[in-house]
């Protein structure tokens, strides 16, 4: 037996270390479909509890939308359950290409290629389009999947301070002699809910002849007046060379992702991106569901408009309650608690009050910046948000953090 007691011991020790450091992740079992109201079993074996979910990426409330569910059923009936193949062997159906064309139109790009997930899109895209003669210059807070993609690519890499345009310009100058330069950013940053300054970034990329890459996973479908993403919000549609995004958040929440942008770059991915070449195609019912999502969002902006109103209500409510939130206008609203234990305690007490929101702390966010990340949805009604605000006020009062400054909270609870 190769899995000896000694081997097992190595792992039990590591896992125990995670436990004692408070870094051990535990799943909560949800017995209902994803929605504003869910039924949760937590801890495992506990009776089910009805709670309001304010930590899903279900921004548009489409994860369990009846029209999307129906379209997925129909796709299942017409195109089957799975394809048992990667795209280029025998895994491309008419609906896969239809979806690619619809995404292209929706995002205002030249072409699109689907990936099993956006994690895969980010893991594959850099290696497919860049070589060791090139340089990637990324924001220091980009998503983990981009960091993995950068690691897999032989191009030189460098970073600039988060959203610091002067620093980015210095780096563009430093690497001016490279064959290709690619500037890499998230559109909306998932931990802070702030947006990249894409207007300025396009300007800099044009000035220095660099390509611009944006991961719009937390934007597609709702940021910008018609929900096309951060490039719409900043008035630079058609000027982003590569956009990656996911169908696993606002756009229905099932799974899948894509690379959308300049047609030659998309074609390079079709020829060379390893997660595209070596991983199974997106399942037909999911493709059919995403097609319906894009139809719904192209026909009306009602859902993103409602999300915008809900977000305003939520940000205003938290601020008036005396909590500290990260400034911005996206539906990602971090409530800052600074101390890791306090974030965990507040999350647990909110759950007792019927509100499901999770604490984030180091190493997911920098040391001393622990928080509860709340995420608003068009699936929320005002009564959900009012109940959640009541809970935040009650728990905030218990810990005496309402109306307190960052300094006061840190003095009391530590970093």
């Amino acid at each position, binding site marked *: 037996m190769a899995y000896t007691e000694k081997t097992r011991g190595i792992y039990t020790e590591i896992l125990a270390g995670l436990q004692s450091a408070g870094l051990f992740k535990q799943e909560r079992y949800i017995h209902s479909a994803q929605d504003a109201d869910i039924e949760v079993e937590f801890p495992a074996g506990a009776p089910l509890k009805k709670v309001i979910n304010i930590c899903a990426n279900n921004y548009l409330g489409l994860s369990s939308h009846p029209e999307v569910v129906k379209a997925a059923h129909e796709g299942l009936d017409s195109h089957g359950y799975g394809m048992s193949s990667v795209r280029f062997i025998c895994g491309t159906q008419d609906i896969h290409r239809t979806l690619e064309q619809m995404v292209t139109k929706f995002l205002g790009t030249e072409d699109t290629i689907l990936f099993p997930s956006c994690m895969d899109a980010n893991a594959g895209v850099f290696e497919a389009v860049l070589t060791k003669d090139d340089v990637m210059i990324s924001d220091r807070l980009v998503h983990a999947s981009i*960091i993995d993609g950068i690691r897999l690519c032989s191009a*030189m*890499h*460098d*970073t600039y*301070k988060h959203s610091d345009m002067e620093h980015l310009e210095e*780096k563009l100058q*430093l690497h001016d002699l490279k064959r290709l330069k690619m500037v890499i950013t998230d559109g909306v940053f998932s931990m802070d809910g702030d947006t990249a300054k894409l207007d300025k970034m396009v300007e800099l990329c044009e000035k220095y002849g660099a390509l611009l890459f944006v991961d719009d996973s937390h934007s597609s479908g709702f940021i910008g007046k018609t929900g096309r993403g951060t490039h719409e919000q900043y008035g630079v549609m058609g000027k982003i060379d590569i956009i990656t995004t996911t169908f696993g958040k606002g756009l229905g929440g099932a799974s899948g992702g894509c690379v959308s942008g300049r047609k030659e770059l998309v074609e390079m991915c079709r020829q060379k991106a390893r997660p595209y070449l070596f991983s199974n195609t997106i399942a037909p019912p999911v493709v059919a569901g995403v097609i319906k999502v894009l139809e719904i969002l192209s026909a009306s902006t009602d859902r993103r408009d409602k999300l915008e109103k809900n977000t305003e209500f939520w940000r205003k409510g938290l601020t008036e309650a005396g909590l500290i939130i990260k400034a911005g206008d996206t539906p990602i609203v971090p409530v800052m608690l600074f101390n890791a234990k306090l974030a965990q305690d507040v999350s647990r007490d909110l759950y007792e009050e019927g509100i499901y929101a999770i604490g984030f702390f180091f*190493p997911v966010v920098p040391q001393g910046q622990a928080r509860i990340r709340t995420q608003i949805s068009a699936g929320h009604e005002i009564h959900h948000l009012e109940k959640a605000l009541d809970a935040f006020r009650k728990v905030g009062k218990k810990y005496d953090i309402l109306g307190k400054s960052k300094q006061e909270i840190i003095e009391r609870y530590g970093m």
Partner: protein
Amino acid sequence: MDEMQEIIKTYVIKEYVEDDTELTYDSPLISGGIVDSFSMVSLKRFLENKYNIAIPDDKATPEAFDSVNKICALVREYVK
């Protein structure tokens, strides 16, 4: 040599430290999460230009760049 320590420390603070984190000549830079290993290339270029040296890529490891003192030691190997 003290001057070199101070020059490198100043560069690291300007490039990486955004709050009032204290930095000593022995603070772990990369393993301590102060310098992201992705931007070592800038640090290397800075050293090469400043001291008019060429540091081979295989010497510019995260370990060799992990503190101001280690960086100084590396640079000294190449200054004539």
